[in-house]
């Protein structure tokens, strides 16, 4: 059995209680009563982590919204300078990656190793495509002089360059941190691919695939809110 840990940790006193010999496996560590309990504990733990991520991004969404209402005109102007077709395309790319990730988890539930690897590779490619498109978009910002840290910063059509700079600071911080999460996600998916190749997972134990899926979908959800807030609101002059 692949998922069996080599050394079982059976306390000697257990053997005297007439219980069945209890080998510890990846799917059932000794501190849990059932495999379902262990799976639920892992899922809950991941959700608690994701909630901390919600609060982390939530603070930035709060700051963004407050400044957006304070500097409404300049920020609407800055928002219209973003490339809507590229933003919408990237949203679709990310949604496709979430679909392939869901399919990878499903294949894990069914124990289809080749399908798991195929869908995880597709997920990774969609993720890398997203990052590539994002990189192209950032390059455009350099060419348009919309990078707040540079001396040549200039947003056309307004005297209030300070407010415009603040918009692009939020833009780079929030899309940058999102992209960083994507990079981490690609690393996690890569790790899961290798582990799948090494036969670590089975229909009894596919928790890491599932948990990686939760992370990936969460990063998708963050973008689902970044997209309308940066690209869509006040698009129409």
């Amino acid at each position: 059995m692949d998922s069996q840990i080599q050394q079982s940790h059976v306390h000697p006193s257990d053997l005297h209680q007439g219980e069945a010999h209890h080998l510890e496996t990846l799917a059932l560590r000794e501190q849990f009563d059932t495999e379902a309990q262990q799976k639920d504990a892992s899922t809950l733990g991941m959700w608690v982590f994701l909630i901390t991520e919600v609060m982390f991004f939530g603070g930035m969404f709060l700051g963004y919204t407050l400044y957006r209402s304070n500097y409404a005109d300049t920020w609407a102007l800055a928002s219209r300078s973003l490339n809507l077709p590229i933003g919408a395309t990237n949203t679709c790319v990310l949604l496709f990656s979430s679909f392939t990730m869901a399919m990878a988890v499903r294949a894990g539930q069914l124990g289809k190793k080749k399908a798991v690897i195929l869908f995880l590779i597709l997920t990774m490619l969609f993720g890398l495509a997203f990052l590539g498109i994002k990189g192209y978009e950032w390059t455009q910002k350099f060419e348009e002089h919309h990078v707040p840290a540079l001396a040549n910063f200039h947003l056309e059509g307004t005297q209030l360059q300070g407010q415009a700079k603040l918009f692009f600071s939020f833009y780079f911080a929030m899309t940058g941190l999102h992209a960083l999460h994507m990079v981490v996600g690609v690393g996690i998916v890569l790790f899961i691919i290798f582990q799948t190749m090494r036969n670590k997972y089975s229909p009894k134990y596919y928790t890491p695939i599932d948990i990686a899926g939760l992370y990936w979908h969460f990063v998708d959800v963050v973008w689902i809110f970044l997209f309308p807030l940066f690209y869509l609101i006040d698009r129409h002059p």
Partner: protein
Amino acid sequence: MNEHPHQDPEHAEHIDSVKTYAVILVALLCLTILTAFVATIDLGPLNIIVALSIAVAKMLLVVLVFMHVRFSTRLTRVVLVGGLLWLAILLLFAFTDFNTRGLLGVPGK
């Protein structure tokens, strides 16, 4: 591990069909196109409401179906809703603060 069967029906394994995931993907893509299209039409203050409503709808599709929250345990759901409640507190109190500053005309403010 046959001595530990899944006794609780709540823990019975749910495997969604490929069709379910495909339908959700198509719905998500359609909502994305819809929200990008609506953004180019001037609806006044409704633009923000439509954009965020569509975003919430997309989030619900991803969370409930892709992230299997439909089938998760009650404890997980309570933690999730509780976490979102804290986010709501953060947003609500901060907006209340910023939007009511200067209302009373306190000297020095």
